[in-house]
């Protein structure tokens, strides 16, 4: 009697395991299908852009400025990094301070919550809206004209929430006891920030910066309204438009000459390679941490 009972139980367990295995196989299969679709889309974009770009690239394109129809794209390459650098300059300090504030939370929590909500909303504001705002406030009201500062600020608005969130995460990874201990040894807020938070989070911060930079480098909409365009290099921080690669992609394709299409593809290729490179570096650094 007892033995047959045990036998039944075993059989039931077997059935259960069997159905679990089936479910597992189906779930795994679906994941692979979705992953496969993503890889196919990404790889075809890559191949298409690299193929179209690499076959038409010339040295002259890379070392001369131009107007998206004639000449090269050096003004756009330089301008892209100038704008991104400016964006970083405007967004990094407030992100670090904001993250320190949220993590160290000396407030009753309400302000931290507001800061969190603010950054979340900021992430989802369409870039064209940020651009429009930058145009009205910076370009027109503050009379900066299309410029590096206006473009940098418009990018900074977009970079800020990403930076702040990633920096906040790397701050939160530092053991709370260490922070408390530093205070117990007589460190004030500034010293705890400069000697504990910043040195220990530097790797996480760096990967955040690279990610924000790669996102900013691929932006177009808010720059159209704030940085404008320049057939040559920007000559100052205000009242001088700036060229950038995404503009070449957009305008070059719209222009009815073969050469302008080549410029667009080469710009797209440079963008995609630098963004991929930056993301790869940030992942590598992040993993090493």
């Amino acid at each position: 009697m007892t033995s047959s009972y045990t036998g039944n139980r075993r059989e039931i367990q077997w059935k259960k395991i069997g159905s679990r295995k089936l479910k597992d196989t189906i779930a795994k299969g679906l994941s692979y299908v979705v992953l496969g679709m993503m890889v196919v889309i990404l790889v075809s974009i890559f191949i298409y852009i690299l193929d179209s770009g690499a076959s038409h690239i010339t040295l002259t394109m890379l070392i001369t400025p131009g107007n998206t129809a004639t000449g090269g794209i050096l003004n756009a390459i330089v301008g892209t990094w100038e704008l991104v650098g400016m964006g970083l300059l405007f967004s990094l300090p407030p992100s670090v301070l904001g993250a320190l504030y949220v993590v160290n939370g000396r407030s009753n929590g309400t302000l931290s919550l507001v800061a969190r909500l603010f950054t979340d909303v900021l992430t989802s504001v369409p870039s064209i809206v940020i651009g429009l705002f930058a145009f009205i406030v910076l370009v027109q009201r503050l009379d900066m004209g299309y410029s590096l500062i206006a473009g940098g600020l418009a990018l900074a608005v977009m970079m800020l929430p990403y930076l702040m969130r990633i920096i906040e995460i790397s701050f939160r990874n530092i053991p709370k006891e260490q922070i408390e201990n530093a205070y117990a040894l007589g460190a004030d807020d500034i010293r705890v920030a400069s000697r504990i938070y910043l040195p220990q989070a530097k790797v996480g911060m760096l990967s955040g910066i690279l990610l924000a930079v790669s996102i900013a480098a691929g932006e177009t909409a808010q720059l159209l309204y704030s940085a404008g365009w320049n057939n040559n290099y920007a000559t100052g921080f205000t009242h001088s438009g700036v060229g950038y690669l995404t503009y070449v992609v957009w305008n070059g394709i719209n222009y009815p000459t073969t050469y302008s299409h080549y410029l667009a593809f080469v710009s797209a290729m440079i963008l995609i390679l630098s963004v991929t490179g930056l993301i790869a570096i940030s992942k590598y650094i992040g993993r090493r941490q």
Partner: protein
Amino acid sequence: MEEKVEKIIEIERLKVETKNKVILDGVDLNIFKNCVNTIVGPSGSGKSTLLRSLNRLLDMDPSMDVSGDVLFEKRNIVDIDPVELRREIGLVFQKPNPFPMSVYDNVAFGLRIQGKKLKKDEMDKMIHQALEDADLIEELGGNLKQGGTSLSGGQQQRLCIARALVLRPKVLMFDEPTSALDPIAKGKIVDLIRALKQKYTVILVTHDMNLTRKVSDYTNLIYEGKFVAKGTGSEFFESEIEEVRDFLTEAD
């Protein structure tokens, strides 16, 4: 005995509460100079909170509401700059937590953040002295460049003690310093606490009654946020007070 010993900290009606809980409910307690002052009590009775209120570490937590008076050398601690107060009253935490830097830099941390420029050999001397006082210098074999986190648990805890000692505090507080350590490492801390009271006033929070028996000069029982009983080393263990008897029975 008590009357002859100088009080270094006087705690009067100390109350700590959050919105929905009273953690310390009017504690009156004295800390005596150059003695090991032990605070015992069951988990959650408010011992750690008491320590953190003495060096105003509780100020960091906006949800804690602190009232009552704490006098450190006859001065109310709210009139002392918290940064200065924390250098005078050092705190060693339950879990050893060296900073991820070398042994030397760990000990130097407190000195460097003072902003005073110390000469290299002066700093070296202070760091060596602190490591010696914390009974760690021999085990390290002079290698102060090794990472603080690569030491064993017991060594890490003594490194944390050295880190506090280098600031020459008047009072050194220990929050259950042995609970995360093995018996041998624990034994070393016990010897160390005994030695330290020659130079410093020690406040020890623990629920380890063996440790208390070995090192305590004055033992104070805190129960559900209230000060219940105190006594010198042997007095305490023979106390007839009901809560003390209950606590001792449970602790053993």
